[in-house]
């Protein structure tokens, strides 16, 4: 019962949408399902927030190592949540000035905008920016041009990196007109338009086939891993 009904829901939900696609009367069902999916995804964020609070409150109450950082997480979480959900400091919209809650929660200059602009954006951008160092150092340690495959990968990365910079344009700027195709900026374009297109197409065809087969396995109940283990 606890596993059979979810399996039925999965199969019916999936196959109804597949069949609905083949009739012009029911094609819009897919769009409705996508909206329902978005709603459940938004509710899943609430679930995620609830879980976050549960885990960090437990860590604080148990006085586990680094519990003070859990406090920082909770303060950041609750501050952002209260300001965002409460539309604190947000003015009404120009269309409906008499409705206090009609303004956009992302209004420029508002507290939620402040949190996005001065906390969320710099923190996430810097996290990703820092990966530049780790990617470079990992590449330096792992990449060795010891066979044709490695040479092709390294060479392409080198040409792409140089070809999109002023240095690349300058390095091969002296080449005569009849060898223009070998200038790094042109070579980059050729690699992207020809070789990269071919490789990406094969990968995308492979991914599509993989998704189709995985979807069928899920819908037919062959793959049940998403239900988790155990009866509870």
């Amino acid at each position: 019962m606890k596993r059979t009904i979810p399996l039925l829901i999965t199969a019916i939900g999936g196959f109804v949408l597949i069949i609905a696609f083949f009739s012009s009367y029911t094609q819009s069902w897919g769009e409705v399902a996508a909206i329902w999916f978005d709603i459940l995804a938004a509710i899943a964020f609430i679930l995620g927030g609830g879980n976050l609070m549960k885990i960090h409150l437990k860590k604080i109450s148990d006085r586990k190592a680094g519990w003070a950082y859990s406090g920082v997480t909770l303060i950041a979480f609750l501050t952002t949540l209260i300001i965002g959900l409460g539309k604190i400091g947000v003015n009404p919209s120009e269309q409906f000035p008499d409705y206090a809650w009609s303004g956009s929660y992302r209004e420029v200059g508002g507290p939620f905008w402040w949190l996005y602009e001065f906390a969320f954006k710099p923190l996430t951008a810097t996290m990703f920016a820092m990966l530049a160092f780790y990617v470079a150092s990992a590449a330096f340690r792992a990449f060795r041009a010891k066979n044709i495959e490695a040479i092709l990968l390294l060479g392409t990365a080198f040409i792409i990196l140089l070809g999109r910079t002023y240095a690349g344009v300058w390095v091969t700027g002296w080449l005569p007109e009849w060898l223009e195709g070998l200038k790094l900026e042109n070579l980059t374009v050729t690699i992207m338009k020809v070789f990269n297109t071919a490789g990406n197409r094969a990968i995308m065809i492979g991914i599509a086939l993989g998704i189709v087969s995985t979807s069928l396995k899920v819908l037919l109940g062959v793959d049940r891993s998403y239900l988790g283990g155990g009866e509870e």
Partner: protein
Amino acid sequence: MKKETVIWTVVMLVGALVLVLNGALRGAGSAYVKAVPMQFVNVAEPGEVNADWIRYNSDRAFDEKLCTQPFEDIPEDLRESWVRYEQAELGEYLASRAADPNDDNYRFSLSQTLGIWVAALFTLFIFSFLYKDNPFYKIAESSVVGVSAAYWMVIGFWDVIVPNLLGKVAPAMVRAWSIPGLEDPPNYWYLVPLILGLMLLWRLSPKGSWIGRWPLAFVIGTTAGIRLIGFIQADFLSQIRNTVIPLIAIDSATGSFAFWDSLKNLIIVIGVLSALTYFFFSVEHKGVVGKTARLGIWFLMITFGAAFGYTVMGRIALFAIRLEFLFDDWLWLIDPLGRRAAEYASLLWPAMPLLG
């Protein structure tokens, strides 16, 4: 105290002193705003149910009776006002003060100045991990977890749950509360995702977490169905269609044989077929199949190399943006967009008083 700790402490203190002096003497890291008064009047005819708000002093003909009199004289129930703060540059602030010292349209913004300093410190905290793991990095890391979890919750609530769920199930309530322009009639089919959503939240309860499997099953099933069709259409078929291209290309302008286009098309077709051969594991990669698969690997390696190059470039661009924020917005050491007056843009600012 260890010698290394002493050195680091001195370096940090000197750095902090320079930052404070830079901020105090030059105003580095400060932000300015333009105050725009927002005044509205209701010009609906007496007895009219819906309000008809227009901007005060707008040029609509029939609101003359309200817009010609001082705003304060308009009855309170017919007017609304607040101040909107738009971002402004230092140059605009200085120019407005030079023109009229009492002009307060352009103002120093304490909250945004504080924001720039907070953002700069967070940036440095994250970068400090390049040296080694430390409490500053951990504070920034914990903050990013909390802020981003709440950020996406807020986005989900205001952009999805309110208009697409509450707006469908109880439009009258949403209309009276936050979306006055909502005109949709109730759609009770949306009770289904509401119930599924509540079942999903049941996972937070210590008992009966299996109830959360039902909405999960719905999400998995519908996603599988939509993706199956979508990927066959958009990826599988369209990629094959785009690969069926002429191997002998003709220049449309001259009608002659286009050698380079033909070669490019040939390489694309060979590349796709050989890379697909590599993915085909039902036949042993030996002989002709093995050689074709090897060629496919070469094409894939070029693709991975290009992806790697672009990833590195993207990260370096982000890094450059962060440095630009630190040196331009925070420290005022560079001014690539010419946003500040010349004396604030120069790297020689400490010597400016001497240079005149």
